[in-house]
């Protein structure tokens, strides 16, 4: 009985620590992102000139957090109070719930190693659109509503290529457990199935609504999208939830395609796994930040057309190709090791070339049609 009790307490403590972990990390990631974007835009970003934000303004986010906590919470008159207040809570809850299955290290450094870990990630993130719908609906604001519509159509759509790409590591590993997926990556999957990694990354960027997919909160069009009416700490919750989601997808990408906690000396010092994982995640996170700083915003129809006409077919073709290539190699007796990886890589590269070829053909055709049409329009 005491064993069981100890187990329960250990799990609860682990869950608590794991829930705090992203919150703490994100505080510094926000600072980092602001610095990087500042440099990209030829600015300095946050500095400590005239304030007490610490060296390099490292604690700027903490100061912002304290400021935001002290601000008044304004709930619009027409708003639906219950739903309005519940939405930001849900955002943060969902963002943190995913962390329950993320393995920070080979053993122990994980709340629970579900044998359906990868599926759990997908299932939990299926809850995310609701916070946006709830926020958009309860605000009684047309910008909020438009933002919610955009967010939902985008997230629901990009979930499909995301899941299709996620299936490929699962297929190569033969398990849904994230630990097993990491253990199977003697060669990181990004070098085995680069196309899957590519489409997973794109889908993730769209899922978290980072530029160039930042339509749900496009500030030049619809104020701030679904959280237009939020202020104070409730706005803070959305802001925080968004950054946690960025971090989460970076971590998941690292787990699925970059080998997770694997790295030198992890066998001797297990907690080093967490460092490796966070380093990899930071790398991916910075890719997202660079997107953010460098890309213009797309239109909603472009975003949706890109998903349904390119990402989803790409995901399907990639899945079928990998499955066939893998099975063929297995029947040829190449079931393991680097030969298998090399074979899959070749299959991926061939597929990638084929896709580029098809796209350039389609592009040429479209250009030809446009040039046909143009004189006609001019004449009319």
């Amino acid at each position, binding site marked *: 009985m005491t064993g069981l009790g100890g187990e329960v307490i250990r799990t609860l403590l682990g869950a608590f620590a794991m829930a705090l972990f992203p919150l703490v990390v994100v505080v510094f990631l926000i600072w980092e992102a602001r610095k990087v974007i500042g440099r990209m835009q030829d600015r300095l970003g946050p500095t400590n000139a005239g304030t007490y934000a610490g060296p390099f303004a490292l604690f700027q986010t903490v100061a912002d957090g304290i400021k935001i906590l002290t601000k008044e919470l304004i709930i619009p008159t027409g708003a*639906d109070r219950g*739903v309005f207040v519940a939405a930001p809570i849900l955002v943060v809850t969902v963002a943190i719930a995913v962390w329950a299955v993320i393995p920070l290290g080979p053993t122990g450094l994980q709340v629970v190693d*579900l*044998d*359906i870990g990868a*599926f*759990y990630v*997908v*299932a*939990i993130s*299926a*809850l995310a*659109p*609701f916070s946006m*719908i*709830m926020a958009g*609906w309860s605000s009684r604001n047309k910008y909020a*509503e438009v933002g*919610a*519509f955009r967010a*939902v159509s985008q997230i*629901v759509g990009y*979930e499909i290529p995301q899941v299709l790409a996620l299936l490929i590591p699962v297929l190569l590993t033969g398990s*849904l457990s994230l630990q097993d997926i990491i253990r199977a990556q003697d060669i990181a999957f990004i070098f085995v199935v680069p196309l899957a990694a590519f489409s997973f990354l794109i889908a993730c960027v769209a899922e978290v609504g980072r530029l160039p997919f930042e339509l749900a909160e496009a500030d030049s069009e619809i104020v701030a999208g679904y959280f237009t009416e939020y202020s104070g700490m409730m706005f803070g919750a959305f802001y925080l939830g968004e950054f946690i989601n960025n971090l989460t997808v970076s971590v998941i990408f690292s787990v699925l395609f970059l080998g997770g906690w694997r790295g030198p000396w992890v066998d001797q010092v297990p907690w080093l796994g967490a460092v490796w994982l966070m380093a990899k995640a930071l790398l991916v996170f910075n890719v997202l930040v660079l997107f953010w700083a460098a890309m213009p915003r797309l239109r909603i129809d472009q975003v949706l057309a890109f998903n349904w006409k390119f990402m989803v077919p790409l995901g399907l073709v990639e899945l079928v190709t990998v499955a066939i290539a893998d099975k063929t190699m297995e029947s040829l007796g190449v079931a393991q090791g680097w030969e298998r990886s090399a074979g899959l890589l070749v299959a991926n590269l061939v597929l990638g070339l084929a896709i580029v070829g098809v796209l350039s053909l389609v592009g040429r055709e479209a250009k030809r049609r446009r040039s046909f049409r143009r004189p006609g329009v001019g004449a009319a």
Partner: protein
Amino acid sequence: MFAGQVVFLIIACLMLGAAVRVVTSRRIFHAALWLIGSFFCVAVIYMLLESPFMAGIQLFIYIGGIAVLTVIAIMVTKGGMHPDSHTLGNGWSAAIVSISLFIVMAWTITQLGFPNEPGMPVAEEGLALLGAALVDPGGYLVPFEVVSVMLMVVLIGSLYLGRER
């Protein structure tokens, strides 16, 4: 065992409460949200039954799929976003039907008698068994394939019926 029962009771009460709110909410959007709450409680009950996969399916299909669809349908329906749009047209007859259904089910359950044996052991590798059953010719291969054809029909059919004319 006792703790499990307490948790079950709490979750069951939450689920029932959410379900009651689904039918009593005056705004249809609230009804949809309560429905999601009810679905979520079902997922928790699956977790209590040590079936995380079913819980995931519940979240993924019912909340991520069906509920999202419901909410979108409400959002795009004229007047669906406004208060008091949840008109209880035939409240009494619906009540009679559901109460009689409840009585029938309760009666049936009391008639069936429950087994005395402890529950069946959870199969090791249950997920693998489930996956194999879906693609095994001696299992559910044909239904699985028929479903895929059905989804194709649904997709093309709804595109055809719903497109601008």
